[in-house]
């Protein structure tokens, strides 16, 4: 599959701050790539460099084979962008906005069809300043699609939206993928990345700290699968002695890490054999969220300790 976006050693410095600190990644055509990171991680900076809106300090960036900064005009005809906090002319209606973009891009996009595609047809004649947050984002999406782009960049498209509005944006993103477009999506919502993305890169403090499919990231960075039962703390000691496994007790719950899935049976037998009272067991494995919280947390702890030392 051809590569839509190729980034090598990308760095963006603002004075002493490295907002983006030497990152590498690539995005294959026709896939959804999600940039996942907390606020201030460098998502918008990276995105805008890819869109040709900001100049990079260092590194190599190719989007559709073009240098975004120097070949901006050519690139902009082939990409669609919904910036974080999309804003538009207040008094212009959704239809007029699409007509405006259509004239600028010399396409014959049909406002009604485009707005239907983003589920905004009912607001076709509403002025921008009367739209809700989610509706504004949808109009942004419609405008980004006016030129039938090969890549769509969406910078935190659902931040601050209610669950219903988020779901309808997700549906549109799935549509984009179905129509063969490449999607570059930034988010700080894990479930969003997990639900939509083929590939995820977790970014924090300008660095990519994990990358791959959600499954790959969990396998590489997640903790082992574990069984948790409601039982007194003695059970943890008993299991550690009897099976030599890592067992922890916490507030009436005992957790046991499983080296292998089949260990589950041995652990359950041992629990039963202990003669201690136990109830309601469950097995759990790390979600992308657990991994994200731990990776980002570890990094920030590290940063704090470093700061404390210096």
């Amino acid at each position, binding site marked *: 599959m051809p590569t839509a976006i190729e980034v090598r050693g990308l760095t963006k410095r603002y004075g002493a701050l490295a907002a983006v600190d030497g990152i590498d990644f690539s995005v294959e055509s026709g896939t959804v790539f999600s940039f996942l990171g907390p606020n201030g991680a460098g998502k918008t900076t990276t995105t805008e460099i890819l*869109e040709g809106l900001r100049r990079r300090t260092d590194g190599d960036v190719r989007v559709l084979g073009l240098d975004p900064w120097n070949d901006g005009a050519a690139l902009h005809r082939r990409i669609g*962008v919904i*910036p974080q906090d999309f804003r*538009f002319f207040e008094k*212009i209606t959704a239809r007029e906005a699409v007509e*405006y973009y259509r*004239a*600028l891009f010399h396409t014959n996009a049909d406002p009604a069809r485009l707005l239907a595609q983003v589920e905004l047809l009912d607001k076709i004649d509403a*002025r921008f300043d009367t739209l809700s947050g989610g509706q504004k984002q949808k109009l942004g999406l419609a405008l980004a699609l006016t030129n039938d782009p090969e890549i769509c960049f969406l910078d935190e498209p659902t931040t601050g939206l209610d669950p219903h509005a988020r779901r309808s944006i997700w549906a549109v993103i799935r549509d984009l993928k179905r129509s063969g477009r490449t999607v570059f999506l930034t988010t700080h919502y894990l479930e969003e990345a997990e639900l939509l993305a083929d590939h995820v890169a977790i970014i924090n403090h300008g660095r990519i700290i994990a990358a791959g499919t959600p499954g790959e990231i969990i396998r590489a960075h997640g903790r082992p699968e574990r069984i948790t039962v409601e039982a007194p703390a003695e059970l943890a000691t008993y299991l550690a002695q009897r099976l030599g496994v890592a067992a922890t007790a916490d507030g009436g719950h005992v957790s046991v890490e499983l080296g292998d899935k089949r260990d589950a049976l041995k652990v359950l037998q041992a629990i039963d054999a202990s003669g201690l009272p136990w109830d309601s067991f469950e097995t759990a494995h790390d979600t992308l969220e657990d991994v994200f919280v731990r990776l980002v947390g570890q990094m920030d702890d590290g940063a704090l300790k470093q700061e404390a030392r210096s």
Partner: protein
Amino acid sequence: MNVRHIGADFRVVVRSYLRNPVALFFSLIFPIILIGLFGLIFSAAGSGPVTVQVLNEDHNSPVSQAFLAALNNTSVVKVAVVSDASVTPSNFGSWLGANDDPVGLIVPDGFASDYENGTATNLTVYTNPSDAASSGTVLGAVQGVANGFNLRRACSGTACSPVIGYTSENVGSPVYTYIDYLIPGLIGFSILTSPMFSMVDIASSYRKDGIFRELSLTPLTRAEWLVSRISWYVLLTFVAAGIMIGAGVYLFSAHVHLTLGLLPFLVIGPFFFVSLGMLAGSVAKTPESAALIGNIITFPMMFLSGTFFTVASFPPYLQDFARVLPLYYVIDGMNQVMLFSNSGRALVDLLIVLVAGIVVFALAVRLFKWRDE
């Protein structure tokens, strides 16, 4: 430069504006308020009929008697025939001035016989620059009565051309009234202020709201964007100029020549000031400093370019200062075409503004960035 892009952006600008009643109100009502305010302050409108001193050189011929009676019957003027024998046509103007009479009329020798023979004859109307209301009233009345006489003659005689004409002279020396100067001045004022204040604001608010960032992702170029804004302000200037000329002529009896020579100023003026506003807004780093730079540029020009007072009435050092202000050339040029019919000097003024405009436009397009460098 793509006309379709400019057209698309222009439609957005027009719609945004028309749907913003406050902005529209200010740009259209403001000129009326200004002309009304200054017109009223500086031309104390009299009430009741205006007394017009008449020097009848036609020795009370029946035709001149009839003419003056008709004038008296208009009820807006009251005819007072000068009886002082020392008053002659050559000292009539200063005599009126000395007696504080704002308006006067000379009926020439041979008025009756010329009228009967169908030979052109000319009345002279004296008006005072400081009293535009009386002047307008008298000029209107004389014109009306003269028309009536001309019509009557044309229908009874062989030649059907008007016979009685009139020329207007001033009591004292200057030929034009305050309101006459005020019209080009206030058109200049609106050419300066409406683009300067809003472009400076747009430059920073569009940057803050990310609208420039949005536009930079489309094929619209900065030059096209600026041309679209200029087009809008040209349109607005035409409407504002029309309102001010209309109000000046109908409310305050201003006499200005409406010539095509005015049009280039209504185009080049906004071209210059939209570009300048954008330039000021672009070099500033914050909205506050943008507003400050805008004010520093705008305020001296607002008062010292001949907007409210003619530059000729300034002390010499202020006149020199006015000559470095671009708006001076816009207003001076409009004075030349609207008042003095001096197209040579108007052309020089126009060229100065045009060249300055091209420079400022090029700088604005170059310096205003719509993406982060």
